[in-house]
């Protein structure tokens, strides 16, 4: 397993990949991707037991992950490529015609690492519950992880899923909420306030963990490991992970304005200057 220094370097490289991918094709979603970089690097680099090659859809005796807020595909693609699922060079095809790296993740083109299409919001928790139930039926002791956005929780299906996971005692499931407080039209509190989020999840019967430092790699790794240990006790586990949208590029950070916008040439250079070249190399 890579040490923390290596994973920190990977975080920087993933951020370079995100900005370069979005800049290349002048579209995509850098804000949420940058904010969740530590989460993805922690998950694939330190927390999950997973096997990139050969990639197996069913994921038997492996940990599996589902991304519900599919628009942050750049961070997922970068981490998948850099953990061995497909060639890093393929990141250059992001959102271009005939690519396996669709704007939103899809299984249709057969990209290794992707188990379901996402993009239309609110569906991923349900899917993760189903995968967790399949593991339970098979006596498979590994975990199912899922990530959802906070604005995404405005979708009613999320609450159907949250209700049912507790009722069905799906306790091999760790859902993380990217609690960055931002969505396309503005701060979540202004668009559709979520109220007391920890209390809501708790009232729905989940074991609730709050991570204040979602952009602190070591804190994220420690929290996801803690979440795994909290499994197996009859309750699903949620990590409410506070992140800084756009983290790592100062002018993109802390605002919804970079949710789905590409930088121009000047902004691109500005961003690259803040993300030093790593030994891993660009795609």
């Amino acid at each position, binding site marked *: 397993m890579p040490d923390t220094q290596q994973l920190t370097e990977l975080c920087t490289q993933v951020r370079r990949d995100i900005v370069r991918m979005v800049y290349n094709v002048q579209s995509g979603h850098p804000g949420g991707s940058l904010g969740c970089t530590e989460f993805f690097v922690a998950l694939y680099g330190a927390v999950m037991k997973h096997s990139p090659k050969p990639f197996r859809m069913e994921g038997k005796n492996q940990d599996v992950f589902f991304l519900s807020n599919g628009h942050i595909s750049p961070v997922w693609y970068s981490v998948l490529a850099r953990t061995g699922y497909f060639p890093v060079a393929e990141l250059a095809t992001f959102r271009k015609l005939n690519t396996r790296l669709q704007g939103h993740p899809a299984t*249709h083109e057969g990209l290794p690492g992707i188990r379901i299409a996402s993009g239309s919001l609110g569906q*991923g928790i*349900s*899917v993760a519950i*189903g995968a967790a139930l*399949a593991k339970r039926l098979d006596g498979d002791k590994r975990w199912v992880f899922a990530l959802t956005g906070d604005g995404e929780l405005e979708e009613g299906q999320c609450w159907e899923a949250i*209700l049912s996971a507790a009722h069905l005692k799906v306790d091999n499931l760790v859902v993380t909420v990217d609690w960055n407080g931002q969505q396309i039209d503005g701060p979540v509190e202004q668009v559709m306030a979520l109220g007391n989020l920890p209390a809501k999840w708790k009232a729905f019967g989940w074991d609730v963990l709050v991570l204040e430092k979602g952009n602190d790699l070591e804190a994220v790794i420690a929290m996801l490991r803690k979440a795994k240990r909290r499994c197996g006790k009859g309750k699903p586990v949620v990590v409410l992970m506070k992140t800084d949208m756009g983290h790592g590029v100062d002018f993109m950070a802390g605002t919804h304005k970079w949710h789905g916008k590409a930088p121009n040439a000047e902004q691109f250079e500005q961003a690259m200057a803040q993300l030093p070249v790593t030994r891993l190399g660009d795609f």
Partner: protein
Amino acid sequence: MKINDITSTSNRATREGFGQGLLELGRQNPKVVGLTADLMESLQMQHFQKEFPERFFQIGIAEANMMGIAAGLATGGKIPYTGTFANFSTGRVYDQIRQSIAYSHKNVKICASHAGVTLGEDGATHQILEDIGLMRMLPGMVVINPCDYNQTKAATIAIAEHHGPVYLRFGRPAWPVFTPEDQKFRIGKALHLASGKDVSIFATGHLVWTCIEAAKELAAQGVSCEVINIHTIKPLDEEAILDSVSKTRAVVVAEEHQRAGGLGDAIANLLAHKLPTPMEYVGVNDSFGESGKPAELLDKYGLGKKDVLWAVKDVLDRKK
């Protein structure tokens, strides 16, 4: 077979065929799991649930969540059968089916009961007449509408062998049973019920029996009808349809569905490209249903035997 040789042995609901089929399938295939959104007994899934409680998931009144969970179970290698009414199996959850099941090519069997006006007294909120159209538009979706108890049971078992999403549509009322109990179900293979030379009648679901009765009456009047059961609307058995039409040169299509988007449109599309032919629809004409008894509703909404007779007469006039 001659039309007068087709007889009904009893009346049983197609949904009962589904329930029995699911139970037998469950015994054969441990990968099969069931889900329902608070309609277990309406779908006759209690037999499966009783024998395989650990493989059955009650999801409550949350159809969107049920479709997502089914997609996740399929990702994990299971063969999920979801059960709710046709309305809540399609229109209510179209986006969930589209993204998590159809586009993701998940091996989910969407099993939909109480389709069409024969649902009866509950009225138009529950009588979906657009579901075949909605589902056949989805790339890769197989769409099946069996005609009686035996065929629904056989189809329920057969679709487990097809890897990919399937929409299986059936209904609420007791309905004449006339297909052989041991008849094998082959997806996409139309069933030739009676040979004829004057007109081809293609029917699906409950209206197959209605067309058989109409064809018997027409036979007595000297009109020879070819009756073909199109239980699989997608993929369509183009060869069987073109073979028949090239002989009869007149077509009637009957279905318990809107005229728009259903089997009729599928066949019209085929014939427009390959063999333009006079054709009449027996289907609901751009209308919602209403409360009433199934027979009354079939009569009022143009889905009865008389409507098949008129359609045949009209198309034969056009053929001249």
